[in-house]
């Protein structure tokens, strides 16, 4: 729309300017001819000056006319446009034809001039408007971007509510109020959900206890067949799995609910050798331990037990029978490596909740996600690496001390 208007204005300006110039030129031509006529009458006929003036004697009077003509200009070595006025005048000395020519500014040049000036105006206007708008917009939208930024940084892990800045603009205040309600609702839903997980898991423990106890009594009070015993034992195994699943879910919920707030400095040397001693009773793996004397980490003792038990247990579970498990730790990191033949299909998913590699082991799929959760809770960095040449699976935790 505005560009159409602009084009129209430019066109009008072009026509107007061209007209103006044409009129000026014609006026000039007429006045020159008038001067020359005067001179001829006085008998001082000027000489012809090519290409702007030519005077010659003719026999009859021709009509006065203005026309455009192209004449070669040797100095500029190009054909130029001239306006020419030819007029016959009758004097005592005979009839003379006077042709006066003036170099015309070409339409092309006018057009270019107009176009350039228009474009420059446009560019300048655009630049000025751009910067004015930018600074104004920044000011105007500041509350919006401030809110947006706060939303981007929002995390369920922090307990503090989001405080939006009060703005002079009603719409932004409305937006902030809306967001506040939304965040509060989401947070309370999230907390309910966390609590729900914990409650459900707790509630499930009692029925499990009843099933477990009844099975034991069935086995002891009745004469059952070997086949029935096998079936009941298998139910007991599944109860155990369900129990573990429950306990792990409860643990995850408790970490989420921040119920482990008493970190202590734990001596890794003592701690790990204690764990390994426990495991040696049930594993045929050999353990090579390389822990510096003063290695320690600050965390809740129970979570430390869960963390290292899960990692060491994992290494035992997935290692080749009677292979060596290597444990290295210092104040900066802990690493456990085991030799396992099978390649992990999705190493990036290994810390995810309920992710299971293959279906060979009866896993809850929560062990490593608990590891991940505990690491996140203490800002540790867990990582997994596989060294194919040695078939070595390594889990490492950087304590980021």
């Amino acid at each position: 729309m505005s560009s159409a208007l602009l084009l129209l204005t430019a066109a009008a300006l072009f026509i107007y300017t061209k007209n103006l110039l044409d009129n000026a030129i014609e006026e000039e031509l007429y006045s020159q001819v008038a001067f020359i006529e005067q001179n001829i009458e006085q008998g001082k006929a000027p000489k012809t000056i090519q290409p702007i003036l030519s005077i010659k004697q003719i026999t009859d009077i021709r009509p006065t006319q203005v026309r455009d003509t192209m004449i070669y200009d040797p100095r500029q070595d190009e054909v130029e446009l001239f306006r020419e006025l030819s007029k016959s005048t009758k004097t005592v000395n005979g009839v003379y034809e006077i042709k006066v020519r003036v170099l015309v500014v070409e339409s092309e040049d006018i057009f270019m001039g107009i176009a350039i000036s228009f474009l420059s105006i446009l560019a300048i206007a655009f630049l000025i408007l751009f910067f004015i708008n930018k600074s104004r917009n920044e000011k105007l939208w500041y509350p919006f971007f401030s809110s947006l930024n706060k939303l981007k940084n929002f995390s369920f892990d922090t307990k503090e509510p989001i405080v939006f800045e009060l703005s002079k603009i009603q719409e932004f205040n409305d937006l902030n109020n809306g967001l506040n309600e939304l965040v509060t609702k989401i947070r309370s839903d999230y907390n309910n959900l966390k609590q729900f997980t914990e409650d459900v898991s707790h509630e499930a423990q009692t029925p499990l206890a009843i099933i477990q106890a009844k099975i034991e009594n069935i086995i002891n009070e009745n004469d059952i067949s070997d086949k029935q015993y096998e079936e009941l034992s298998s139910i007991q195994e599944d109860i155990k799995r369900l129990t573990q699943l429950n306990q792990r879910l409860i643990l995850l919920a408790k970490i989420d609910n921040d119920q482990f707030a008493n970190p202590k400095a734990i001596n890794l040397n003592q701690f790990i050798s204690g764990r390994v001693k426990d495991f040696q009773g049930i594993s045929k793996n050999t353990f090579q331990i390389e822990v510096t004397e003063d290695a320690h980490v600050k965390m809740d003792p129970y979570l430390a037990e869960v963390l290292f038990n899960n990692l060491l247990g994992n290494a035992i579970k997935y290692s080749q029978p009677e292979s060596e498990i290597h444990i290295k730790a210092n104040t900066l990191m802990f690493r456990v490596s085991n030799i396992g033949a099978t390649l992990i299909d999705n190493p990036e998913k290994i810390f995810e909740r309920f992710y299971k590699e293959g279906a060979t082991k009866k896993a809850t799929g929560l062990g490593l996600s608990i590891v991940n959760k505990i690491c996140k809770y203490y800002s540790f960095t867990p990582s997994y690496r596989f060294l194919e040449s040695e078939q070595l699976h390594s889990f490492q935790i950087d304590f980021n001390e």
Partner: protein
Amino acid sequence: MKILIAEDEKALQSSIQTYLDRDGNVCEVASDFYEAQQKIALYDYDIIVLDVNLDTGSGLEILRIIKKEQKKVGVVIISANSSLEDKLEGLDLGADDYITKPFHLAELNSRIKAVLRRGKFGGSDTIEFHEIRVNTSSRTVYVEDKAITLTRKEYDLLLFFISNQGRVLSKGIIAEHLWGDNSDLLDNFDFIYVHINNLRKKLKGAGARYIKTAYGSGYKFIAE
């Protein structure tokens, strides 16, 4: 022994009662806070199996009453909550043991007997089973009055067997008793075979025959 089972889940309550009755114990039950409160006020028990979450009040409150009145009774808490704080709170209040739901009745039974053996509540620190005699305070085992040397696991295993004599103990239950949560790291039960075979050898002739295989894959400690 006289045992009070304070548990609001009737099904669990009666299952525990069934299991414990077999050892010639006298079991009484309380299904809510008030019944439990009433019964401990009226009668003397050797052991109270106490659920933390009773219908109408906290089991820990019962525990406080027991300790306040300085009753000579062993308390084994059962709880659906496995958290360490709960456990510590229970033990701080003077409970003798703490077991988390779900549990094996054999495990509960062995914990109850262990509490009784600590002597304070009318139990004895000596257990006898035919020619086998175990002194639990010195952790020594005699077969026909001759001391035998058992490893820690073998000793635990023997005590677990004697405590649950006549009952079928699956390998899973035994593994959990011996290794707790770590037992799920066992790929197979070879470790249990090893301990049981060693124990059989050390118990010699008659003793070895007490450990019987039941249903192909379980064990039962019983004299002929």
